[in-house]
């Protein structure tokens, strides 16, 4: 055979192999769906158990995302308050604010005038009469300094120390400890979420694995027939891999729907909580991307569980 003939044979056999592969996969795909449809209750139970198992880390992910967002927002609202001396001139305060804005460890600086401070005080319950009784404004200028986002605690402490020694500064107030605790809480939550996700992913693998194992045991006769008429190990296993994929995909959809329901149920209380922070907190749910990824990840888990179990059980039945 010449090189040209060999090339031509390869060119012909490649589409043939692809067609064979497509025909076999189409049959296995249909066979897997028929098998799941043949026992709807068992399939539904597997999907629901796996769906609930996957919904937990997904919900935790949602809570954590919001907590992280909350920490960031609180970080901004808990900016460092720099109280100027009462005799500080507006021009000097503005100049100092400008200097601070040039610093790398400062994200933003805003000026709160004595008039604004008095107005805020007057709006608080029980203070209106006391403020009205004053014949002058005793409040100083305040510089609200926001540290750079995600700045380490040591850097924030260094900034506070630097602010304290600035000319014209009377007092520096910071709620850094509280913010550190919140950050630590979010970090711990992230770890818990990862551990929980791993454990529940393992649980999902076991659930799918057990279902596929039962499917294989229930189809021992069929598997024997398939092997006798020339089915390869891969062909026999393929419907079970597809079944695992369907279990995973369906349970991922269930998990996403459950989390969406939880989101809707919590939307009211969370909205009120957000409003209590003056509308600065934007509490949100999972994104469309995240909701799409959940079923895909679950489908992979289902396929993996089916692959692990089917390899072992079909080898045992050989």
């Amino acid at each position, binding site marked *: 055979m010449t090189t040209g003939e060999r090339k031509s044979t390869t060119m012909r056999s490649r589409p043939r192999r692809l067609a*064979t592969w497509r*025909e076999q996969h189409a049959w296995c795909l249909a066979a897997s769906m028929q098998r799941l449809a043949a026992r709807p209750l068992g399939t539904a139970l597997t999907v629901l158990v796996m769906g609930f198992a996957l919904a937990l880390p997904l919900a935790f992910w949602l809570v954590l995302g919001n907590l992280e967002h909350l920490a960031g927002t609180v970080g901004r609202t808990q900016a460092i308050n720099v109280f100027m001396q009462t005799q500080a001139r507006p021009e000097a305060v503005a100049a100092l604010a400008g200097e601070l804005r040039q610093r790398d460890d400062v994200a933003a600086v805003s000026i709160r005038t004595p008039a604004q401070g008095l107005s805020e005080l007057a709006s608080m319950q029980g203070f209106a009469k006391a403020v009205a009784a004053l014949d002058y404004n005793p409040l100083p200028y305040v510089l609200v300094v926001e540290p750079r986002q995600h700045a380490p605690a040591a850097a924030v402490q260094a900034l506070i120390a630097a602010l304290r020694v600035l000319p014209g500064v009377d007092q520096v107030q910071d709620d850094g400890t509280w913010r550190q605790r919140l950050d630590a809480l979010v970090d711990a939550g992230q770890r818990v979420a990862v551990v929980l996700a791993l454990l529940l992913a393992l649980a999902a693998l076991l659930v799918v694995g057990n279902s596929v194992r039962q499917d294989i045991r229930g189809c021992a*006769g069929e598997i024997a*027939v398939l092997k*006798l*008429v*020339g089915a390869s190990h891969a*062909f026999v296993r393929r419907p079970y891999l597809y079944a695992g994929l369907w279990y995973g995909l369906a349970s991922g959809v269930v998990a996403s729907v459950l989390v969406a329901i939880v989101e809707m149920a919590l939307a009211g209380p969370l909205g009120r909580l957000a409003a209590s922070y003056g509308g600065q907190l934007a509490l949100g749910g999972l994104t469309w991307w995240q909701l799409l990824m959940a079923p895909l990840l679950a489908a992979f888990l289902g396929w993996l569980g089916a692959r692990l179990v089917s390899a072992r059980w079909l080898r045992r039945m050989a």
Partner: protein
Amino acid sequence: MRVASRYPRLHVPHLHRAVIRFDQVSKHYPSGQEALSQVSFEVAPGEMVFVTGHSGAGKSTLLKLLAAIEKPSRGRVSLDGQNLARVGPHAVPLLRRKLGMVFQDHRLLMDRSVFANVELPLVIAGMAADERARRVRAALEKVGLLATEGKSPEALSTGEQQRVGIARAIVGKPTVLLADEPTGNLDPHLATEVMGLFAAFQQVGTTILVASHDLALIKRMKKRVVVLDHGRMVDDVPAVEVA
């Protein structure tokens, strides 16, 4: 039927290329049971041979060796010139696709239609759907069951189920057809009908090996007969001498 062997046990002179060849084949199970002992015979292309003997004589073991379900303990089993002892686990499915197998208990998938059962070997071979449909209908027509293609095998009689099994065995146009007690569950009339089908397949060049203990049926068919007794081949009667 004669009892003495007509052929020497060793080194049979081959005037043709045998499709099936057993050369000094023995099979021992781990339990110590000797299922076959030094069995040697050949089957020519397009020949139909009955393997007979009492229950436990080794008929099924002989077929299992040909289908690579079992491996011989000693000796050599060849199919189409291929030494089956050298066939690796990955090549066994390819080997089985060359064979058609018919079983006493039909081994049909009861949750699938007749069509789907017969289609199975073609799906495994990766044949396109339209070609599969054409071949399945041709096979069902040969066994006279075209009208039942949409039915479940459970809705058919035992004889019809056996014919579905035969259709599945021949749909891939195998060069060799193996049948293990194919008429075991059938009444004499249906058994003759099934054997008539086998004879028709032989006419178109298929090599057929049938394990059966139904001597009356074997005599009626007038084909070559290999006789086993406690795992030993005790006779090999040519078709012309079967009476």
